[in-house]
């Protein structure tokens, strides 16, 4: 890349655009001088790097800054005060909120629930996605259509997911209970979403159904980059197949698999809608993850400062966890213009 890069990186406008706007290069007609004649020069100057680059990235940068960095700073500020309802004034209370939250059982319970939720989701999504990807990587009729449309569940809003989950798992109307009874496995209907012991698993099952197809698509694409000679035949049978899978195919897509685990976990921690719509964090807080607890504190109990404190703690935890992701992102370069 180095030798080609020097030529290619050269800003295409620098030599050519100079021709029609030569006076931009003359002394005294710089970018900052705006006279009637200089306006053309200014416009020409703005169309050259670095100004052109800055100009184009600026709107998105400003947008993101106002909607991400400002909220972060404001959350930090709110977490040091005692604000209740939105709009009510609060007093500075220092680290009181942090002491209170870190000493509360509900915070640690939500951490435990979040951990279990994330691990369950990541493991199940990963295993299902990998299995489905291996299955769809075989040669079969209509494979192109199936490989694209497998993502279908991911296209739906989670209210559809919640409808489906509630409907299928309902104790009296649900098909799952019906089948369990018909098979003689249970006598009394099970309230999957209504029992503290089962709710988290039930919501996980529903959520996994929505997300695993998304990762199937990514893993499938990675599998297809493996040269055919390595995989020989894509049939899924025999010990030879498993050995090849373990020693050849999985190692050669390990980077993608790592990324899938990282993304799946970051997204799982952030899930709000599926849990809220199915159980509202209940029963008995069994599905109250940190995200749910923050929403609950802020928008049901109207304790803005406590919610802000929880948000800051979640931000720090994710930052710690996301270091692996960040390190990877930080290594990544945009690359030279092709």
């Amino acid at each position, binding site marked *: 890349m180095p030798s080609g890069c020097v030529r290619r990186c*050269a800003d*295409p*406008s620098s030599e050519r655009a100079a021709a029609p706007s030569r006076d931009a290069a003359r002394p005294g007609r710089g970018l900052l001088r705006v006279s009637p004649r200089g306006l053309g020069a200014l416009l020409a100057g703005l169309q050259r790097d*670095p100004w052109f*680059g*800055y100009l184009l*990235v600026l709107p*998105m940068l400003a947008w*993101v800054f106002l*909607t*991400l960095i*400002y*909220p*972060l700073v404001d*959350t930090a500020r*709110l977490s040091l005060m005692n604000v209740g309802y*939105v*709009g009510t004034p609060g007093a500075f209370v220092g680290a009181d909120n942090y002491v209170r939250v870190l000493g509360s059982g509900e915070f640690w319970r939500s951490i435990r629930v979040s951990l279990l939720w994330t691990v369950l989701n990541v493991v199940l999504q990963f295993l299902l996605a990998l299995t489905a990807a291996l*299955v769809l990587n075989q040669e*079969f009729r209509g494979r192109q259509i*199936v490989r694209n449309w497998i*993502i*279908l569940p991911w*296209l739906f*809003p*989670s*209210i*559809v997911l919640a*409808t489906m989950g509630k*409907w299928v798992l309902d104790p009296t*109307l649900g098909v799952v209970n*019906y089948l369990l009874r018909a098979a003689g496995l249970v006598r009394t209907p099970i309230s999957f979403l209504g029992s503290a012991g089962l709710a988290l698993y039930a919501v996980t099952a529903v959520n996994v159904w929505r997300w695993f197809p998304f990762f199937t*698509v990514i893993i*499938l694409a*990675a599998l297809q980059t493996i040269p055919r000679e390595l995989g020989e035949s894509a*049939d*899924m049978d025999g010990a030879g197949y498993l050995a090849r899978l373990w020693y050849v195919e999985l190692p050669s897509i390990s980077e*993608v698999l790592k*990324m899938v685990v990282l993304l799946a976990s970051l997204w799982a921690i952030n899930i709000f*809608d599926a849990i809220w*719509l199915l159980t*509202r964090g209940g029963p008995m807080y069994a599905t109250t993850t940190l*995200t749910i607890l*923050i*929403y609950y504190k*802020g*928008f049901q109990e109207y304790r*803005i400062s406590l*919610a*802000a404190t929880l*948000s800051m703690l*979640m*931000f720090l935890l*994710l930052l710690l966890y*996301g270091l692996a992701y960040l390190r990877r*992102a930080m290594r*990544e370069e*945009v690359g030279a*213009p*092709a």
Partner: protein
Amino acid sequence: MRLAKHLARYLSVAAVLAVVLLPMYWIVISSFKTLPELTSSTPTFWPRTFTVEHYVRLFAQVPFVTYFLNSVYVALASTAITLVLASLAAYSLYRCRYRGRHLLYRAFISIYIFPRVLLLIPLYVLFTRMGIIDTLLALIIVNVTVVAPFSIWMLRAFFTTVPLDLEDAAMVDGASRLQVLVRIFLPLSAPGLAAVALNSFLMSWTEYLFAVAFIISDRHKTLPVGMAHFLQQYFIDWGLLMSSSVLIAIPPIVLFGLAGRWFIKGLTAGAVR
């Protein structure tokens, strides 16, 4: 032996398809069952009755059309703004040359680890002060931020493959750089723009967290939030839930049919490189 292999292959594919499709089948047929059949404790796997009453009620009894149009408006506006901002930013990052662009790219990509719920409270406070709480504009503003990193990330696969020579040639012909960007570069990257548009439409269409927190009045509710009312704790209107679930799924499916292959390409080219 060959036959067994063949059979195993198709059976495994069928199993995967069943996992994905059966729940959807269940919703669709349920939406056409009459209420007695729908709420009978013995489910029927092939409907015995057929009715469109649950669909009719959507239009006659509840403000489904209002919710639907709100959702369309939010999704289209979010998509339009995202397209402009993301394609300009991505052009800058991938095609321009200046100090700090690597750093900028990394900063954008790092947004991923930002917990979404963190934005909830400060933006609620900010939007209240700005007087735009309980408006669709509030949702549009957040949606653009939420899809920004993914959009920039996905455009890379499309923006880095357009040959520089094309731009150079147009520049020699006297076109300004902005003209080249708008008239030559972006049309050449149309598939990438389609992929980004589909993604941001889907994200806005499915968004629930901000929509439920920022919207108070019924006439500003988006479809997912409006539908959540049918799913109240003590009374669940199954008929309305089924029929609206079917209808809310149609726009994503149609759009994916139109631009899905580019979306998949952007998604996988970004992930597998």
